[in-house]
């Protein structure tokens, strides 16, 4: 009886595994492939003929003597259209051709940023644009979003929803700049570093407040996050008008640029890619360390366990409450650093609501990345690119049918992309199972 029953189980699980592989990719790639074909047709038939037929260039460095790639927009976009039609068909035929077609699809998507730029050049009077510089500013603008999404990860992976990232950044930015203005007149180098440290600590304090509200008092975590956002907005507004403005130091000296030894000496691109500001570079380190600690160390395993099933974590002797506090506050430190980017690095001053929803976009990046550090980083890059692109497009003065697109339209771009990405592109992502649920230790 038992052996018979076992073989039933075994047989069933094997057959399930075999069936589920092709079943999983199901019909999704048909739609995706069809969309690519459609995009290709639109590019070929409607877009390419309407572009200016003059030589344009992607440059790798600045004039007067740039290394550049020259092309005629109608040809370029037309070829791109043909390329997308091909990739679309490959994708539709994936079942027959094998999974290598996936790479074609990925290449197609990765090519889109350049395509957009080529189209813009085809409607602009400027003869070329620097793409390395665009990449650099994408990375720079991605900094607070990437850092904010790491904050989100440390918080949500341990089970606490954090929509207070925005407020945490803003509070840190405001208090850090105030410190800089009061202690160092917005110019002293040592006071600048002290202020970065203050930003980090303030971020930790705001996160601690979120932790106390949601862990100790079991308040609804969304509401706790909203409280933090409102608190930061009010507090920094007050400090700006009552302290910063009165101190007379409205703007200061931002964090200095420096070059990474050796790498910054690479010809053509080295002095663009590897010369930059400290918080921007620290961001890569934070993402890497987040991945390393969260996925490769015992403590990271425990953090994730607390976010999935705190009761199970408790039964193996993990102190869930303490782990939650530590992880949330660690995330707060990171958000504090992101705050310093706003008021000490990208510009040395403080304005009301200067974080401008970056904290919420960071959450979108985290969801886009399905709660993984590298995925969230990719999401942050996407938003950083959207942000850099909108300035670039304003600069190119793109006109469509004789009508110059207003800058407000381009400023909308990052937010429009947020909505599209979160609503459509991200497949079903599963958040940590215990996220948002209050936990009480057994007694």
């Amino acid at each position: 009886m038992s052996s018979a029953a076992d073989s039933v189980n075994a047989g069933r699980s094997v057959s399930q595994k075999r069936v589920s592989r092709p079943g999983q990719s199901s019909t999704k790639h048909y739609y995706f492939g069809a969309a690519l074909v459609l995009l290709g047709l639109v590019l070929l038939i409607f877009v390419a003929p309407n572009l200016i037929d003059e030589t344009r260039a992607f440059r790798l460095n600045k004039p007067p003597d740039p290394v550049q790639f020259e092309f005629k927009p109608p040809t370029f976009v037309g070829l791109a259209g043909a390329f997308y039609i091909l990739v679309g068909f490959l994708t539709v035929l994936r079942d027959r051709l094998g999974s290598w077609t996936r790479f074609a699809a990925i290449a197609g998507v990765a090519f889109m940023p350049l395509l957009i730029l080529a189209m813009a050049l085809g409607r602009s009077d400027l003869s070329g644009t620097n793409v390395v510089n665009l990449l650099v500013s994408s990375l720079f603008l991605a900094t607070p979003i990437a850092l904010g999404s790491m904050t989100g990860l440390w918080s949500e992976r341990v089970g606490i929803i954090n929509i207070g990232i925005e407020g945490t950044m803003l509070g840190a930015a405001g208090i850090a700049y105030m410190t800089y203005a009061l202690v160092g007149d917005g110019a002293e180098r040592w006071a600048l570093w002290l202020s970065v440290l203050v930003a980090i600590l303030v971020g930790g304090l705001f996160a601690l407040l979120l932790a106390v509200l949601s862990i100790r008092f079991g308040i609804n975590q969304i509401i706790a996050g909203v409280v933090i956002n409102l608190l930061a907005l009010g507090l920094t507004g007050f400090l700006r008008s009552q302290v910063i403005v009165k101190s007379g130091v409205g703007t200061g000296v931002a964090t200095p640029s420096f070059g990474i030894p050796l790498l910054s000496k690479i010809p053509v691109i080295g002095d663009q890619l590897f010369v930059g500001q400290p918080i921007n570079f620290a961001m890569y380190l934070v993402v890497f360390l987040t991945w390393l600690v969260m996925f490769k160390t015992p403590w990271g395993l425990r953090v994730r366990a607390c976010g999935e099933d705190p009761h199970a974590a408790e039964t193996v002797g993990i102190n869930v409450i303490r782990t939650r506090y530590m992880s949330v506050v660690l995330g707060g430190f990171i958000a504090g650093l992101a705050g310093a980017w706003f008021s000490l690095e990208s510009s040395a001053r403080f304005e009301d609501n200067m974080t401008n929803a970056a904290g919420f976009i960071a959450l979108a990046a985290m969801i886009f990345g399905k709660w993984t550090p590298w995925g969230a980083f990719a999401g942050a890059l996407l938003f950083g690119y959207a942000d850099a692109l909108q300035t670039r497009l304003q600069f190119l003065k793109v006109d469509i049918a004789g009508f110059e697109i207003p800058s407000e339209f381009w400023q909308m771009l990052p937010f429009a992309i947020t909505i599209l990405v979160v609503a459509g592109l991200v497949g079903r992502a599963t958040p940590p199972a215990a996220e948002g649920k209050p936990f009480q230790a057994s007694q």
Partner: protein
Amino acid sequence: MTTPVLEVRNIRKTFPGVVANDAVDFTLMKGEIHCLLGENGAGKSTLMNIVFGLYQPDNGTIEVDGEEVSFENSRDAIAAGIGMVHQHFQLIPVFTVAENVILGSETTKGKLLDLDAARSIILDLGKRYGLHVDPDAKVGDLSVGEQQRVELIKALYREADILILDEPTAVLTPGEVDDFFEVVQSLVQQGKSIIFITHKLREVLAVADKITVMRSGTVVGTAEPSTSTQQSLANLMVGHDVTLQVDKTPAEPGETALVVSHLQVSDTRGLPAVAGIDLEVRAGEIFGIAGVQGNGQRELVEALAGMHKIDGGRVQMLGVDVTSMSPRQISELGVAHIPEDREKHGVVGEYPIYDNLVLNRYFKAPFVKRGVRQMGAIRAEAERLIQMFDVRTPSMDTLTSSLSGGNRQKTIIARELSQDPKLMLVAQPTRGLDVGSIQFIHEQIIALRDSGVAVLLVSAELDEIMSLSDRVGVMYQGKMVGVVEAAGATRETLGILMAGGTIDEARTDGSEHRGSSR
């Protein structure tokens, strides 16, 4: 077998409104399998959670190897050599087996996790105790039996000498239970001592060296398996004489109440789970469906209850075509459903008991008037049902999630029977319940049948199927492989059908198969 490894004295533990343990003494000897018996809510899990350091007792002492200990948390208990496999598995589905095993006491290389080391330890333990499982599999993809092995490996990895197994067999298939007992025997041979909680008296008599029985938070006696019978243990547990045999008269089937034709249903992953089933159930009869879990029974019942999309075929209930009806519409026809997954589909744990008791009627008079809930009527009805079905709870305002498993099940049954059903869909009605509750529920089901209700019963317990059903169908890989009259069915015949054999094989080769089975 002479030295005590664990001695618990005078333990008391109260929860708001409940004395879960009172003056409990318990002694575990080295190398013994000690069965802990007791009704649902008797306080067994509570006692074990205290021994494992999860709960702090209000009073009393614990000694391990003759030395008094006091555990702040389960880390301390683990350090003292105690391991526990919980009634509800404490595993993280998205983690791999290796990650689950090492969580909390990780293998490391420098400051980083060392999963390679974990893998080899798991494979070693697997070899030593016969616990085979792939260290890299995701726990969520494993069968319940495999998950249980992971729990055991977790305890052994922490070098537990005392193993607490809280109802480990409740969720296992018969084959898995046999394998499980082999593992338990090998553990004892290697010097471990085991506390084993179960409601299945047959298992107790088969494996126990010693038996302790609890009732209402206190120890009411100990027994030796050699001098006990299932009957004597049941009586000791419940406190009065119980009948283990189900009494029933032959069925008097009436009109056909449920007609299922060519039914096809997919499971949650979109794979076919029910592959063309035909069946009929008539008023006044119990149609039992036997089968190893995972052969489509769950999807069948959920599809009939309207909770699962039907891919093909038709379902007719009480003369009405319900193929594309919603659960509410089906319920309104007079169809009651006792779902397999109690926590997910049976009760809302965060609601008080009174709300759960009217969950199928809260939108109707007298429980609502002009859109306003009538708390008086709701509470009166809850009071009536709690009395009638003997739901043991400090009050009707208690959160349903803090009830013991048996009382939760009684809550569901009370609610479902309260609207005079004509057809009942019953899945695993007594899983994890004590003998008293099982008897009670069985009586209810028989009484319903006798009053002319049609009952479709799905159960993984062959005993239950055989003692309740009038006709038995066996499901295998989504198909009904045979339907037999209950009177002529034996464990062997059903076993062959459950393993995918044919009716003819079952009739002729019954004896041979019996020979090859354990």
